[in-house]
């Protein structure tokens, strides 16, 4: 087995205790918040105290917490994420029918962020001290300052209501993805602009870049082959970390654009104290986050052959 394969196997095995820890932590966090699913149902169902107690008993909510946790973990090991306390649908089915839309939105937002952020950051670094640099700073400031939900609402007004170019509620078409992805990705683009600029400014001042230039290499070769390749490492680390931020942002954007997704699902589940759904969603989101970070580690090796895992 190569050192890389051994490393990957080790990392994958390490995810098991991490995910177990997340499951247990989430379990206690959602159970420590006041109220339960029955009190959530009570808001509109007008059950008597006796009916509520019957329902709690039927759902196993009266059992001690460690019993409930044990029951949940036993099922989890068997691949059963349980059933929603509202309506009784299997959690796995609920997640399966929502995760695709969230991944689609997150990846599209990431593409928007990279496509806008990296070139603008490079431009600002090359033209530092000029109007281009100032413009990139301003764009980044605005991008970071504007809440994505508000940007989404403004986009709806402009591109859907006023111009009629883009649909608001069409979940299934590529056109329906443009506004949500842009609203979610622009704030991340702003962060990428700043990081790319800072990294590239440092690298462009490095000795080896100066040497490359002194050797008479063309500017674009120096930039693309020598500077950018090294600048990508911190950028990739940050993009991996931003994946989690985008997942969180998707919660808001999915609501604004009436999109299906894990965000909508988990928000409603938290409000309803629908513990199995909350736990299932957190577990899946955590798994995705861990896997993306693993992917980032692998990409390090691809980008920089000097890096070796053992």
């Amino acid at each position: 087995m190569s050192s890389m394969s051994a490393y990957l196997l080790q990392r994958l095995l390490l995810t098991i205790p991490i995910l177990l820890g997340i499951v247990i932590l989430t379990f206690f966090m959602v159970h420590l918040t006041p109220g339960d699913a029955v009190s959530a149902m009570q808001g509109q169902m007008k059950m008597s105290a006796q009916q509520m107690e019957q329902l709690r008993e039927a759902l196993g909510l009266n059992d001690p917490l460690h019993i409930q946790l044990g029951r949940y973990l036993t099922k989890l090991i068997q691949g059963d994420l349980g059933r929603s306390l509202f309506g009784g649908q299997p959690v796995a089915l609920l997640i399966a029918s929502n995760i695709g839309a969230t991944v689609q939105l997150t990846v599209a937002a990431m593409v928007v962020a990279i496509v806008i952020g990296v070139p603008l950051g490079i431009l600002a670094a090359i033209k530092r001290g000029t109007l281009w640099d100032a413009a990139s700073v301003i764009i980044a400031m605005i991008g970071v300052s504007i809440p994505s939900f508000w940007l989404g609402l403004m986009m709806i007004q402009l591109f859907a209501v006023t111009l009629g170019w883009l649909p608001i509620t069409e979940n299934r078409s590529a056109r329906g993805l443009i506004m949500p992805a842009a609203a979610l990705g622009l704030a991340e683009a702003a962060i990428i602009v700043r990081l790319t600029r800072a990294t590239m400014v440092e690298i462009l001042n490095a000795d080896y870049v100066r040497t490359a230039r002194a050797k008479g290499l063309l500017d674009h070769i120096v930039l693309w082959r020598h500077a950018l390749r090294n600048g990508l490492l911190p950028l990739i680390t940050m993009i991996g970390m931003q994946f989690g931020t985008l997942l969180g942002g998707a919660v808001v954007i999915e609501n604004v654009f009436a999109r299906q997704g894990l965000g909508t699902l988990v928000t409603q589940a938290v409000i309803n104290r629908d513990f199995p759904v909350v736990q299932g969603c957190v577990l899946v989101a955590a798994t995705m986050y861990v896997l993306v970070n693993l992917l980032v580690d692998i990409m390090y090796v691809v980008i920089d052959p000097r890096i070796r895992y053992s």
Partner: protein
Amino acid sequence: MTPRAPSPRFWSILTVLIMTCSLALSACGASPQQSAPAPTQGGNVAPPPTSVPATAADAAPQATKRARLIFFGNLEPASIDVITMSGNVNERQVAAQIFETLVYMDQSQQIYPGLARAWKRSEDATVWTFTIAPGVMWHDGTPFTAQSVVDYFEYVRDNPVGSGPGTLKAVINSARVIDETTVELTLTAPRPDLLIELADPGMGIGNASYLKRVGADAGFNPIGTGPFKFKEWVRGSQIVLVRNPDWTWGSPMFRMTSPPLLEEIVFRFTSEAQTRLAALEAGEVDFVDLLPFQDVVRVRADPRFTVTGVLLPGMPQMNYMHTGLPPTNELNVRKAIIYATDKEGIIESVYFNMVEPAYGPLSRVFPEYEPALEQMYEYNPEKAMQLLEEAGWRPGPDGVRVKDGRRLEVVIVENKGWNDWVYVLQANLQAVGFDAKVLTTQGPSNTEAIASGKYHVPAMGDVFASASQMTRDWHSEGYGTFPSGHFLKGEEGARLDAMLKDAESEIDPEQRKQKYRDIQRFIMENALMVPIFELYFYVAHANDLKGFIVDGTGFYKYFASAYFE
């Protein structure tokens, strides 16, 4: 060359861009909870609301210009099973198209036959006999019979999960088939308002054998007898219903004996009100629920849309007052709170004059409404301060009144998104010497906070179609969310309990009216609540959508007879 004037589109784009920039600059300092939004149209005062009945099915429509209706509601259902549904209003909204009730009630409070074509009740309203409509079929093709109704009521009675019909669990004694088309329901107590309860869209008759066979999954593939069949549910996106071509047994309320003209109804959901409105304005959807108050005037002025405002019957938006906690255990303090509350100011600044003031625990649309309450209290801060002085509450060094070393402190509970008036109330109370705090909660945490009995002035409201439902809001046993047992203790609490039970089972209409008026006076004389406003429910829809019917609560729409003109 003559310069060309910019097009209206140019100005629209410019407006949005300017708005974007200005809001971006001001976003950091905004304090949405404290600021009252400005009127939407250049300072124009909005016209007072009127209860506009939605388009009634005046005559049987012959054709529809479009066959697909898209409804944009606020919250996605958790399930669409009349038994297991959580009570989310949109569950009932969707269920109202799939399931049918024994009887129907429209916005004029008239009861119509539904799956029951006729009915009679015993003198004491404990035995009810229903004659079932002939030829009705479930969506799976099996026949709907008198036995189906009995099975349903037995399922409701014996099922531990109660939802809409759950409120009747304790009332149903037995259900039996008399003959092929007749069902007899025996109750444990007189229920003169049973028909009103049965007309609730949450009381649609479910297929008990299907429910037993399929279990909770029935909520995701529901089978009813209604005008539309379930087609698909893309979670988080939409629910699609299709026309039931066999539906020829519709209630006389729909004034049609043929299947619906609409081929398909699509329900989409988002809690973001501005998105719902934008989708309507962009022509993507035909009907939006819960129009934001600040947009009513603007959308009403748009010739493409019809805006309907309906006064929702029930308990007006209000604040309970906890009589078991100091200082609201003192009658003078409770009365002072009512006198200090500027409800007209609340209506103008928070609700843009799109609602009307309330004066007691029952909406004015009910025949049992007590008009004398309108003169009982007025906005009078001086009177509030005088009452506090009389009770020994004197101004302290920081302006907050004190008595025996105790500060005049009250906690107002807000259910986020529903009780925006609480901040004005807080300011009103502070102006007369209270240390008023607001506890913001949402959904279940609100239920939890109220049921804890720890807070003085929780905000609340309720929607129902019969005065007898006051029991759930005021009886000490109540129905969980609003047990007045948390708020009214001792002898007076027991008296209110007895009055409610007595009125609930009163059969004589005049006696009943008097008893409910006595209850309302009792509540207000004891200052058990701060009435704020009558809740209006605004919806907007495309002008060419006609023929839908609004139910007795004003909340739900039936689309069986809807069409596009």
